[in-house]
């Protein structure tokens, strides 16, 4: 057994914290991610990761956990995208682009200040690419509260969100107010991206958001099932990534180890590619004829 799970894996406190936070974040990412893919808002999600980078770097600058910076700046960014993008043809795309540029500029400034003034050389790596093994266990309740908030928003607007994701015209004709629903979704997206940034880093957080959801949408014919499948895949990928990263400390004599974010994203991508195999997809012909 010990050539699969290296000794001390389950008794290591950082590993335990990583497994718990990783699972919570993967489930939240799955619920939000399914709607992100259905609404074709992957680009908005990516932009929020850049906003999170700036926020996380800014949080380190003032000496608080990057998590608050990730989530707080994401919410501000989501609001800014709504204000710029509203009532314009292709406004959503334009707003996303503008916020993306501004956020990346701020991220460059804050990361520079972090490394020069606070002399924490690893901070750039930590913000951009994550370091789940260094997260303090006191953050677990905070992660759970943020995650519950994000999921609660999605469940509260579930039906109008679903209808407007299918067709804005149909939703409007049913009396759905598109803007509040869209804004609430963006808030849930911002929180979930911020949480994912804690696990795999701000730059890679869309991978955790989009990958399992896109994989699940190939296999499940209902929204609820897609969320369940995406959650299972996300938790599986996160745990397997943590295990492989832990094991990699023992792979060579220098005991350097390889980054956990790489392994998580690698598993996510492999799962997505595997789901493209014809047998795993919900059959086109099969579900036509009952």
């Amino acid at each position, binding site marked *: 057994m010990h050539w699969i799970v290296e000794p001390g894996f389950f008794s290591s406190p950082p590993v335990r914290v990583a497994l718990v936070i990783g699972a919570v974040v993967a489930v939240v990412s799955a619920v939000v991610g*399914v709607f992100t893919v*259905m609404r074709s808002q992957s680009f908005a999600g990516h932009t929020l990761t850049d906003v999170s980078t700036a926020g996380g770097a800014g949080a380190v600058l003032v000496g608080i956990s990057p998590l608050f910076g990730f989530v707080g700046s994401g919410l501000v960014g989501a609001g800014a995208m709504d204000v710029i993008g509203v009532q314009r043809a292709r406004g959503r795309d334009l707003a996303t682009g503008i916020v993306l540029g501004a956020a990346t500029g701020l991220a460059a400034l804050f990361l520079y200040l972090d490394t020069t003034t606070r002399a924490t050389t690893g901070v750039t790596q930590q913000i951009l690419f994550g370091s789940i093994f260094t997260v303090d266990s006191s953050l677990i309740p905070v992660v759970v509260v943020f995650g519950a908030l994000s999921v609660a928003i999605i*469940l*509260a*607007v*579930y*039906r*109008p969100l*679903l*209808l407007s994701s*299918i*067709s804005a*015209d*149909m*939703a*409007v*004709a*049913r*009396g*759905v107010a598109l803007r509040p629903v869209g804004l609430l979704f963006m808030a849930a997206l911002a929180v979930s991206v911020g949480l994912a940034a804690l696990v795999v880093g701000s730059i890679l957080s869309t991978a955790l958001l989009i990958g399992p959801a896109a994989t699940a*949408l*190939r296999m*499940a*014919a*209902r*929204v609820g*099932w*897609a969320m369940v499948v995406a959650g299972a895949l996300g938790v599986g990928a996160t745990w397997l990534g943590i295990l492989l990263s832990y094991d990699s400390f023992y792979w060579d004599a220098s005991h350097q180890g390889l980054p956990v974010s790489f392994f998580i994203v690698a598993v996510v991508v492999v799962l997505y590619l595997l789901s493209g195999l014809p047998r795993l997809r*919900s059959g*086109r012909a099969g*579900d*036509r004829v*009952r």
Partner: protein
Amino acid sequence: MTGLSAPPGDDVLRVDGASVSLSGRLVLDRVTFRVAAGEFTGLIGSNGAGKTTLLRVILGLQPTSAGEVSVLGAPASRRNHVIGYVPQKVLFEPETPMRARDLVALGIDGHRFGVPLRARRRRQLVDDMLHAVGADRFADARIGHLSGGEQQRVLIAHALVSRPRILLLDEPLANLDPGGAQEIVTVLHRIAVHEGIGILLSAHEINPLLPVMDRIVYLAGGRAASGTTAEVVRTEVLSALYGHHVDVIRIHGRVLVVAGPGGQGEQAPPVAPVPEVG
């Protein structure tokens, strides 16, 4: 099904002198017509004639600059649940995680907050509606895997499941083959008659609607002529509407509207000289 059917012939929708200007351009110019319960009305016009704008006016999404729109005696407004609506060009990705019945169910309560609870009554309503449009066979199939005609049936069921008194459809026959278009028209006609619903269907092609159409609203350049097909689809009426001479030709029970000489529209190509033989 037992709807709140109005007596056939009662007006459910009146549009009286409605005009709409969009960025300085008069898109609808004093459009007047009515739709009666249990009747099938065709809204005919080419692309850009103002069909979608007119439907948006009736839905209360587009304000008018003049004229009145009355829906069951009340002014047009949003959140009007007496109108069912099938928009044009609804694209379903193959991976949209929804079955046909899920989309129909959203027609009952898609505007409500929270997650739907399983209820027998809700499921029964959905089953009845899928049956009424002939969609039982693919009720559990993914919406994105259905053909264009099958998707139209599901969209119609979605629009009808909340028991509206008026059904608006924007170009539902576009991209359907003639057989598929005929099936949809037949389903709609049956629903109009049985449920006493007033149907207003926009199309650029008049012929698929001829067998079932009680009334016609013919739009050209923002102006409308309305009445029965026999009253409206005539050379004099359509020439006046277009502002230049058009010929209405009836052949084998179908209608051709052809721009005459001097018309700005689609002119007949000049006839090529026939090469002499021998």
